[in-house]
């Protein structure tokens, strides 16, 4: 039996996840990061992406937007602006958002608009990917 640690995923409007897990994988600004029990204490900002949680041999996935991860001894938390399980994702809305963002990017407006559109596009793509996993 693999050793476990407590994982909390906290969104502004709720505690998204709180349980003992074996592993969590996130995408940081520097790339993928997998955390197992007894990982060295660490803080790292996260990019829009997927969170993978392994518990009891089964794995779960969720979509999160920007946030950060803090690993302490025996306790890890992910704090994010939003988090969703695959079944919570509104596929239609994500698709509409993706289309809108793509159009915005094609139209090429100011710098800020492009950054925002790219972030929106990224979120939409991640949502769709996570949702299709089911």
């Amino acid at each position: 039996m693999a050793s476990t640690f407590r994982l909390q995923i906290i969104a502004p409007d709720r505690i998204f996840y709180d349980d003992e897990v074996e592993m969590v994988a996130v995408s940081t600004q520097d790339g993928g990061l997998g955390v197992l029990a007894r990982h060295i204490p660490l803080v790292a900002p996260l990019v829009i992406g997927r969170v993978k949680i392994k518990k009891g041999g089964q794995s779960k996935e969720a979509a999160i937007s920007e946030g950060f991860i803090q690993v302490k001894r025996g306790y890890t938390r992910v704090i994010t602006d939003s988090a969703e399980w695959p079944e919570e994702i509104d596929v239609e809305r994500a698709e509409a958002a993706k289309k809108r963002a793509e159009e915005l990017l094609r139209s090429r407006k100011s710098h800020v608009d492009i950054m925002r559109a790219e972030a929106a596009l990224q979120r939409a793509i991640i949502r769709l990917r996570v949702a299709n996993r089911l």
Partner: protein
Amino acid sequence: MAVLGLRNIKRHIRGISDIRQITRAMELVASVKMRKARELLGKTRPHFQSIEDVINDIIIYIKEDESRKKKRKVGHELMEAREVKKACYIIVSADRGLAGSYNVNIIRMAQSHMDKQAGEVSVITIGQKARDYFRKRDYEIDGEFTQISEDPTYASAKSIAKLCIEMYIQGSVDEVYLVYTEFLSAVSYNPKLTKLLPLEPKIKESVEDKPQTVKFMLYEPSVEEVLNYLIPKYIESMIYGALVESATSEQSARRVAMKNATDNAGEIIDDLQLKYHRARQASITQEISEIVSGAEALS
């Protein structure tokens, strides 16, 4: 004459019971809204507290690092205090009144703190009440947000945070204060003023996890990068927290105010009712004595 008096009292009673009906309805609405706001408050507190925790950990880490003098000083432009020429106040009030002393308290608190400032002041107002107050007194208003106090969203907190961080970085303000109402319980809430920028977290002595392993905390990719991300985040969540706390306090203040109004109306009605009965009794007595004396005169 007596009949007119009676009619007046009756009309008065009717008027007040209409008012009581309205205040009672408002009380019920406010208590439903308060329950909702409290739920939200319960859900948002962990998020806010976690961010505060992490920030505090980093501050401890930086301090220890500095005391070991192994590395160069790490910091962030939002953490460096400078001479205060202008202070900005973010004031969270309600859009609507009828909430007892809720709006007055928060504005008074901000005002008294401002009066002590040597330099200039400007305000960012949230809610119509604060906006009207400071506009009337010709304060410099750097930003105003209305229609968000009752139902605060993270997005609106984000835009407020962005505004004040930008102003701070440009140097148009040198200090940012946040004035809001902290929700303690359904009957008690406190106006509170905290300094938002420059950042100076109060290091709480939390009993459970003291500096624990903080010395060996790894910051990926670097402490600066983490701070770059985390400080704006912290400001955002502080503001969001303040909005949610204030919204909850507003509803509970309104509920209490309306409950008092309803109770008072009830008392007035009781008084008037008594008066009405007395006047009615008096007029009946008078009529009887008139009849009796009339009958006596005839016999």
